């Protein structure tokens, strides 16, 4: 009560004083646009009767340029007086221009942090004020901004794997400083610095792993250094089948991962049916995986966010690389077009098995031709107009193409030529404009086009004797999804305690479940064409604030409002997000988070794998969006700059998950998909432990995940809960990289996982023939979903690299062995009576990828 009376009295005093004050909002007209400050103050006095009081520090002789002829007194004074040095107060009919004591004046330092050798921006680099251990981090474009009082400060700019830069600054005005950090050579041992307290300032660790693409060590099948293989050594990340099937993060399905390439969503992220990711290491700068505690600027999928940033290209000099492996050939070239202004980065990757096969067939004089390849092209161009404006244009094209050509005599004088093509791929484009509005406000606006297409072509032509081939049959089938989006986002950094991010995303999704064209000259209905396009709109608004309370508590809270419109159906969701981190000591912190995510696009799967034939469909009136609610808690301990221990637990609830009905079959997936699926609930929980050392001669990481994941669908498994297809109870991996010398490096990776659930049929029932009601057959019946388990999974991969400096660059031989001890890991098992003399059904297990050695050569210049 006492507090209330006191506050109320203060308010009354304030109001009474305010009533007597001159109104600073009063608008006045100014005949000129340019004044000497003393004359301007006189003009204001003449028009408002206000008396000015100021100290001699105010330079009243300076020239002042005004933008408007009519403006409020406050606006005029704000334009004329440096508010960093003076504050304006009105009392009675007096306006006081009070000098701020020098030690209280705040100035801002901002700029970009980049790699000193390549000029690539460094994302999440730390800027720390060592005098009071406050600071900030660079954003996704390498931009940082920090306000400091007017005195000498020792600033530390640091990033893992780079030499830190210490900078003595004494600011007298807002200043822009771009910082370049020198990468450490791998063999430099970790030095314990005296200012480790500065390392984690304003870094939130909740369920997030970030790394630079150049640190990727893990090779996959055939020695390809693949992004997804490198993610699988992180806790909570697994693949559903060996080498195949995409990424499963915290027991989510692959379609629940939001995969962003330079802000553009990528819908199908694998080549060769999930064996490789579509992301070429040469083109990538930095990768961030968020598994929980999602900040509000991410949304649209419920399991994870994989934010991949492409390289901008070297700003200093032209550089590149090429490599030749057993499966792929790669080429990269990047550098400045105009030094320190415009850069480019071009990366190309292609498999070449088809070229070898077809070359051999040609040599043997065969008309037949069969081939499969996948390829990627990444192109990025960045232009810096000024310190404040940057324009980025990035493109990714990648796809898989299988083709068969054959010809045969179909009668004595007619020869038929048949050509099949099957392809799928992504084409993504983003045009981004970065603008530093002022030293507090950074903006990024992006225009996005993303397209995923699945395509089938079949052509037949005939010729009689020596005449030319005439086409008599042409069939094309296409399905896919196309997105057009506009995204604008702002980073507002008022001071070191607050970091605000807010933005808007608007997207138009064009989903094509399948369009067909058939032209058959031998048929009366010579041309048939069907097409269907589902248009849907998505609008998202979000805002988040990262606030530092004292020196120990960091909180990121935000909300995302998402809305989706398709046909006459409208969905809208408010998604709250909260992340907290409490630093018990500078090295030891505790984290906690809650996040709600909503997904408006469903992937209807045509098999248990993640195949290119899977179709994306927007929500309908009957099929609702997936919602997930995830809670996490964890602790993080940094032994030093290099060695870190992370322990986290999570609990995730999901609604409106889809699974195929027990009796569904492929009838017309385009129009009838709603009736093929059943919606239900899922819940997962887990414990993740990760110990990693990322610097020094010996580095690597150890990860362990203990998890459980269940789902329940009313019409499946008699309505009882069952293990989700991605329920792997134990998952353990250890990766060690050892630099033997400056010229050679050895890596070993061992992983173990509990077998995944499998559905088997051990029963058959009598089934009547639909063509003869007196005849019966026996048919397999599945009564319990996922009630069996595949055998446990484990394997050891080894690789060794030999590097040598040459005249124009560095060459490297990489030798690797996948599955060194030839473990027969089961990818799939089924019940079969085939090839069985006793006709007794047996359990058959298919093992993929046993011992596979590979070698590759690469050259960097």
């Amino acid at each position, binding site marked *: 009560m006492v507090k209330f009376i006191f506050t109320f009295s203060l308010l009354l005093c304030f109001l009474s004083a305010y009533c007597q004050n001159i109104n600073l909002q009063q608008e006045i007209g100014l005949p000129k646009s340019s004044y000497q400050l003393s004359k301007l103050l006189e003009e204001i006095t003449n028009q408002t009767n206000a008396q000015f009081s100021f100290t001699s520090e105010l330079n009243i002789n300076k020239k002042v340029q005004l933008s408007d002829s009519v403006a409020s007194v406050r606006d005029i004074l704000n334009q004329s007086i440096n508010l960093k040095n003076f504050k304006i107060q009105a009392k009675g009919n007096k306006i006081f221009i009070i000098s701020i004591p020098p030690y209280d004046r705040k100035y801002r330092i901002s700029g970009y942090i980049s790699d000193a050798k390549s000029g690539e921006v460094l994302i999440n680099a730390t800027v720390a004020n060592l005098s009071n251990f406050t600071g900030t981090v660079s954003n996704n474009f390498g931009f940082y901004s920090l306000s400091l009082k007017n005195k000498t400060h020792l600033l530390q700019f640091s990033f893992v794997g780079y030499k830190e830069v210490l900078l003595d600054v004494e600011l007298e005005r807002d200043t822009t400083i771009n910082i370049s950090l020198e990468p450490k050579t791998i063999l430099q041992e970790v030095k314990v610095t005296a200012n480790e307290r500065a390392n984690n300032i304003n870094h939130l660790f909740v369920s997030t792993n970030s790394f630079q693409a150049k640190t990727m060590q893990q090779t996959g099948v055939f020695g390809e250094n693949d992004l997804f293989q490198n993610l699988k050594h992180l806790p909570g990340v697994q693949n559903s089948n060996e080498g195949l099937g995409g990424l499963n993060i915290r027991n989510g399905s692959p379609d629940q991962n939001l995969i962003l390439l330079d802000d553009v969503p990528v819908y199908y992220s694998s080549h060769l*049916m999930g064996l490789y990711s579509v992301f070429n290491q040469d083109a990538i700068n930095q990768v961030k995986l968020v598994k929980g505690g999602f900040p509000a600027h991410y949304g649209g999928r419920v399991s994870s966010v994989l934010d991949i940033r492409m390289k901008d290209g070297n700003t200093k000099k032209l550089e590149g690389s090429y490599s030749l492996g057993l499966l792929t050939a790669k080429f990269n070239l990047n550098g400045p077009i105009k030094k320190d202004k415009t850069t480019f980065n071009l990366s190309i990757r292609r498999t070449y098995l088809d070229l070898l096969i077809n070359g051999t067939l040609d040599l043997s004089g065969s008309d037949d031709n069969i081939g499969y390849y996948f390829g990627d092209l990444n192109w990025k161009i960045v232009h810096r107009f000024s310190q404040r404006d940057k324009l980025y244009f990035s493109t990714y094209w990648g796809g898989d193409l299988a083709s068969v050509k054959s010809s045969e005599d179909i009668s004595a004088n007619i020869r038929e030529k048949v050509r099949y093509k099957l392809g799928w791929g992504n084409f993504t484009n983003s045009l981004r404009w970065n603008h530093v509005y002022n030293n507090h406000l950074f903006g990024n606006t992006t225009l996005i086009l993303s397209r995923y297409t699945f395509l*089938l072509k079949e052509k037949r032509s005939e010729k009689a004797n020596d005449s030319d081939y005439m086409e008599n049959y042409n069939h094309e089938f296409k399905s896919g999804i196309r997105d057009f989006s506009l995204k604008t986002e702002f980073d507002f950094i008022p001071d070191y305690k607050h970091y605000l991010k807010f933005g808007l995303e608007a997207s138009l999704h064009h989903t094509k479940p399948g369009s067909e064209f058939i032209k058959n000259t031998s048929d009366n209905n010579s041309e048939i064409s069907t097409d269907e396009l589902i248009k849907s709109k998505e609008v998202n608004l979000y805002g988040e604030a990262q606030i530092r309370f004292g020196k120990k508590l960091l909180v990121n809270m935000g909300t995302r409002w998402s809305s989706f419109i398709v046909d006459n159906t409208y969905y809208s969701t408010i998604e709250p997000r909260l992340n907290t981190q409490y630093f018990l000591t500078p090295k030891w912190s505790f984290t906690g988070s809650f996040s709600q995510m909503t997904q408006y696009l469903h992937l209807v799967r045509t098999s*248990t794998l993640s195949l290119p034939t899977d179709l994306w469909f927007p929500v309908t009136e009957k099929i609702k969006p997936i919602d997930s609610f995830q809670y996490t808690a964890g602790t993080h301990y940094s032994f030093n700059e290099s060695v870190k221990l992370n322990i986290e637990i999570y609990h995730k609830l999901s609604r409106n998950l889809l699974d195929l009905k027990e009796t569904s079959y492929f009838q017309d997936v385009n129009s009838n998909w709603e009736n093929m699926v059943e919606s239900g609930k899922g819940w997962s929980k887990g414990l993740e432990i990760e110990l990693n050392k990322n610097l020094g001669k010996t580095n690597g990481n150890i990860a362990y995940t203990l998890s459980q994941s269940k789902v329940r669908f009313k019409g499946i498994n008699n309505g009882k809960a069952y293990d989700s297809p991605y329920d792997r109870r134990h998952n353990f991996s250890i990766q060690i990289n050892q630099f033997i010398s400056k010229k050679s490096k050895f890596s070993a990776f061992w992983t173990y996982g509990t077998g995944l659930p499998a559905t088997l049929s051990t029963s*058959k029932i*009598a089934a009547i023939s639909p063509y003869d009601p007196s005849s019966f057959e026996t048919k397999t*019946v*599945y*009564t319990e979903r996922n009630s069996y388990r595949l055998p446990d999974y484990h394997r050891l991969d080894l690789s060794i690299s030999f590097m040598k400096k040459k005249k124009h660059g560095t060459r490297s031989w990489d030798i690797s062995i996948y599955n060194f001890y030839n473990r027969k890991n089961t990818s799939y098992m089924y*019940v079969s009576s085939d090839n069985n003399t006793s006709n007794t059904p047996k359990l058959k297990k298919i*093992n993929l990828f046993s011992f596979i050695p590979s070698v590759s050569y690469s050259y960097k210049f």
Partner: protein
Amino acid sequence: MNYFKLLTCLFLLLLLASCEEEEELPQTKSDPITSINSLIGVDSLIKLNLSKSIGSPVEIQYISDAKITAYKNDKELGELVYRENGTYELPNQYMESETEYEITITHPSFNTITTNTITPEKILINDIKILNEASEGKTTFELKFTDDASKSNYYMLLVKGISNNNSNVIQYYSNDIVFEGNLNVNDNGFEQNMLRGSRSFSDENFESSQVEISFYILANDFFVDYQEYKIELYHLNEDYFNYERSFVSLENKGDIPFSNKTNLYSNVEGAFGIFTSYALDYKIVPKQ
């Protein structure tokens, strides 16, 4: 060849590096499964077959001691009588068209099972023409019938070869849009490929109520010299249509790796199986 096969080829490439192991089946985890089978034509006796799996993956046991009661438009018709090999029959009761029939099955070893069907009306074949293209070894038929455009209708077309009073279902082909995705010659699309060989179709692709379908048989497909062909047009209800398609789909799926594990279409509550009906019209045409 179609794109599913291409995908399979790709997968086989991966399998080159793979191998297969064989083991004894694990102990079954499911209880015995009761199955009901009944496809009844209009003007036929009401009958069904009742059996159960007994845990072993190959053996099936007939159930002979169940109490099965039939109802017609919610009125009890009587109790079905057990004949042999799991078959029960309601004597002297013939199915009428456009009527609802319901069956309840009770037995001490399982909970009550219920299922029902609404019989369709007979659709008459208006005309059938036969064209012999001897040079190509091909016999083409043109079938005409009238579809009731006010309802969703489902059909099945069977061709039977008749020789010495025996008839056999024989393979036929068609480029007609009504069979889109069903038959071997015009299969396309992954989901439709699973339906190759299916002989059912819906009225979805009919251009008018006067339906004309062209289909053909190839002499090389069979060794018997059939003197006559029986063309059967089945008017199905939706359950029959779904059952036929799921039956074909399961056959085609076979042991394809990574295929989704789904069951035969069932319209029975409390068990697996089918209880549905059809109305049949046919014409016999001599070989030309």
